[in-house]
């Protein structure tokens, strides 16, 4: 399980949470105008920033 997690998520705790948050945002804004996609992208870019602050592996 540990190996699978390392393979899929590179041992990051932030990235699965960030993706889950982005999915929640997407579901909440589904059917809204095009800025919903921009909000989705924004959460994913914020996730990138947050995961680089994790301890270096």
């Amino acid at each position: 399980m540990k190996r699978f997690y390392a393979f899929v998520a590179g041992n990051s705790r932030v990235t699965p949470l960030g993706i889950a948050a982005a999915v929640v945002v997407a579901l909440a804004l589904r059917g809204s105008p095009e800025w919903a996609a921009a909000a989705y992208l924004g959460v994913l870019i914020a996730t990138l920033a947050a995961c680089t602050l994790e301890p270096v592996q």
Partner: protein
Amino acid sequence: MSPWIALGTTFTASALECVEAATIVMAVGYTAGWRVALSATAWALAALVAIAALLGPVLLLYVPIAALKIVIGVFLLLFGYTWLRKAIWRFAGRKSLRDENAAFEKEVRDLRAHHERRYAFATAFNGVLVEGLEVAVIVVTFAAERAGTFLWAAAGALAAAATVASAAFVLRHPFSRIPENAMGFIVGVMLLSFGTFWSAEGLGLQWWSGDGALLTLVAAYALAGFVLSALLRKPVSA
């Protein structure tokens, strides 16, 4: 999406993984003999081709397209984050650059400590299988998104493997001058862009300019990567 983009992305990702696998195979070849190194490589490659050839059509046939876009999008996002943050850390000086010569020396030391032929075979087999597995999954995800893309994505991965294998045969030395981090940065940006695009479509979101939004995503992630590399850069001590 142009099939050339799928080909280019899998070529770059595969080339990087093949460089790392080639280091392990060469270490096995020089210490335990080329017969065991090459037979282990052939078995691992056969396993990878079987995984990609079976998984792609199964996904296409049995999983609804919207669910498929979400699943492959999330996989690409997870892989993309791993590639890009590693490249950012390395550009920022927070993680050392990969040294193929050092990796080669370490493998040779480990292999000399174990004299068994079985250990050498397992080392080469695992090296090729583990390094190639991510590429196989990436090829499958490209195939799953659009059926015609499979051959292009697979061709990119196989072309990279052939190029690295030919170069390894000619040079007979670990590759130490490959710009691995820049290539990793590009692969990370591409995987994140495709992952974002497909997962959003699967979730029912609409992009502002259809397929053209992919270019905006590539630019956004590349810019974010450069900014984060600069912000995280360690100050040079006087």
